[in-house]
């Protein structure tokens, strides 16, 4: 097929995409790698010098970086299973026959959290979780719970971030899985239900194989999103109190744009990119193998 299409035509189709990708993705990435090999502070541009792998050595031995990384993976480890569990539950409910109008309404409602800007979610959180005037404590007060210091307490602030992340992204997981469920051939599903009354068996042996591609996409996208989670946390807690919500992207922003050490921040970002790529490959190999 390709031999019959002139190379010129091929390039004219693929070329613009490659050019755009090079401009917005590869170019900045190369620049970030170059920066990471230099002492490069925006407020000390006269002192820019090549320092080899010093920035990488600093990052890899910096407990603050690894603490932030650990916190980020803890967030991922708590939020992602919750999103998948709730998302799957919602998808299975919406997959039930009947209740057409309610399903449409629910699908519409599911889009709302995803459509809300991250930064706005964070600002909402700042107001809603306010210890004195926040609606969350007000609602808890109706059932006799004393006001909780959500944003000012390190542990609570972390769980407030988990809550918001789950709230915002469970609908995404639900919609992806619902799409997966619709690809299950109805006759197979029907036959399976005639064979067994166990919903678990139907889910495990009939529906799950069709859900796996969607689940892999969810895992990759949500992992990448969590690793770069910034806006919501920045507007809600700014990484505080203390370091309680200083996730890796907040740390990189702090180093790069508040202390202006672009060299160190670039090294952190490159390491984060490597971790993200490794994780993505891991997901694809493990889960896609299962699909095959």
């Amino acid at each position: 097929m390709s031999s019959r299409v002139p190379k010129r035509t091929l390039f004219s189709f693929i070329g613009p995409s490659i050019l755009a990708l090079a401009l917005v993705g590869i170019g900045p990435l190369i620049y970030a790698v170059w920066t990471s090999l230099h002492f490069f502070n925006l407020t000390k541009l006269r002192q820019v010098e090549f320092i080899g792998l010093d920035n990488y050595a600093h990052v890899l031995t910096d407990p603050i970086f690894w603490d932030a990384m650990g916190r980020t993976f803890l967030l991922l480890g708590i939020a992602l299973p919750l999103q998948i569990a709730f998302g799957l539950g919602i998808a299975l409910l919406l997959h039930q026959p009947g209740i057409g109008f309610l399903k449409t309404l629910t699908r519409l409602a599911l889009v709302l959290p995803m459509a809300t800007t991250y930064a706005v979610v964070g600002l909402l959180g700042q107001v809603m979780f306010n210890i004195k005037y926040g609606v969350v404590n007000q609602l808890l007060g109706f059932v006799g719970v004393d006001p909780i210091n959500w944003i000012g307490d390190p542990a609570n602030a972390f769980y407030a971030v988990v809550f918001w992340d789950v709230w915002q992204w469970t609908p995404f997981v639900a919609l992806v899985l619902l799409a997966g469920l619709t690809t299950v051939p109805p006759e197979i599903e029907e036959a399976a239900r005639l064979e067994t009354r166990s919903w678990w068996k139907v889910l495990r042996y009939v529906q799950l194989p069709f859900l796996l591609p969607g689940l892999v996409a969810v895992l990759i996208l949500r992992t990448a999103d969590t690793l770069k989670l910034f806006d919501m946390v920045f507007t809600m807690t700014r990484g505080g109190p203390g370091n309680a919500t200083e996730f890796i992207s907040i740390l990189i922003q702090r180093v790069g744009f508040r202390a202006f050490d672009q060299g160190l921040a670039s090294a952190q970002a490159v390491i984060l990119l490597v971790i993200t790529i490794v994780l993505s490959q891991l997901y694809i190999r493990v889960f896609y193998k299962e699909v095959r």
Partner: protein
Amino acid sequence: MKLRSLASAGAIAAALTAGGTAANAWSLEEAAAPYAGTTVDVVFLLRPGYEAAEAMIPEFTEKTGIEINITKLPYENALGEQVRDFVAGGDLDIALIDLVWIGNFAENEWIVPIDKFTSNPDLADPELDIDDFFPLVLNAFGGWNGTIYGLPFDNYSGLLFYNRCMLEEAGFDGPPETWDAVMNEYGPALTKDGKYAYALQSKRNETQSADSFARMLWPFGGSFLDENFRSNLMSAESQAGLKFRQNLMQYMPEGIVSYDHAETVNALAQGDVAFITEWSAFYATLKNPETSQVTDCLGIAPEPMGPAGRKPALGGFSLAVASQADEDEQAAAWLFIQWVTSKANAETYLRKGGVPARQSVYELPGIAEEFDFVPALVESWQDGVPEFRPRFAEWPEITEIVQEWGTKMMLGEVTTEEGAQEIGTRMEAVLDQAGYYSGEKPLAQ
């Protein structure tokens, strides 16, 4: 000889007359005429002083034809945006400079010394009267290493804002004079029934380092650095201040480490705390019945004294001409800075919600009575410490360290000694790399 003397005297008299006429004849309209149509780009913050200036700008534009293009930013974004603009050779013609940014901006030559304009009779207003600015404020906000770059624009001092009614109910006939009284008398008496004596804004950003950490160092005799630029945070005085802050937290609302200015001002405005130490700029918010429930009970005093004296927080912004602007833009920018900070406009600026740094405006009859923060403010500007926070170029890195470990101290994650040790070590590493210890840079802060 006699004739020649007379002629000389005549010439001098003529020159003086001409000079006097020129001085008298100077007008903003004429000075600005060559720059009509020029647009000046500047960053403003979302604070009352900037709203006041914004309300004045139409008059400036009408007189000069110079447009002022404002980019409004929250404080936390203002430094980053400006640094990126200056590094990239962007559009900003005026630099808005927090006093802790001045060393950074000046050393990078992003701003132009005012001499360039004050020495140009076409641009210098004969009524500029630079000595009318409070000397502390002019030097701290606009000066670096003996050179003046900016004119004080949005000017703050830390003040004690208090709820007179709450204090009277608790049996006090006035605000606390000393930090010792805050701890031992006012704190226990006013912290009850869900109300607290005091709120100290301590959120992990510049608020933590400037408003919380530094505020407790200086009155106790502490400081960030000693005379050799080594950390002074382990000194007995600095430790006394930091431990005092820890102890005082028992009289502050829960979650004080998440309180920024808005939460703190709001806590007083809603009657939840009896007093706060905040910037003078928040007077307008606390005095406005739409944003405050305590307008009738609001009292203002200088910050309490510690063993080392009053040493109130000092903060504020100057405006300086950006060196990246072309000559016309620089001239237009200077005319705006000169006008908005002028003696003639100080009263208007004050009445619109700003806080000018002109001494003369506070001496006008009735001003001290009408604006009840004035006596405390003037007193504070006599006692302030210019290096309340070091103003050198390395502050952006150091403040991040202070913010992180200062908050950890307050949360009890580290002791004041451990935190101070950590800040000291990291701070000295930054200063070492900058060349202060090798003698490459002068020990200026």
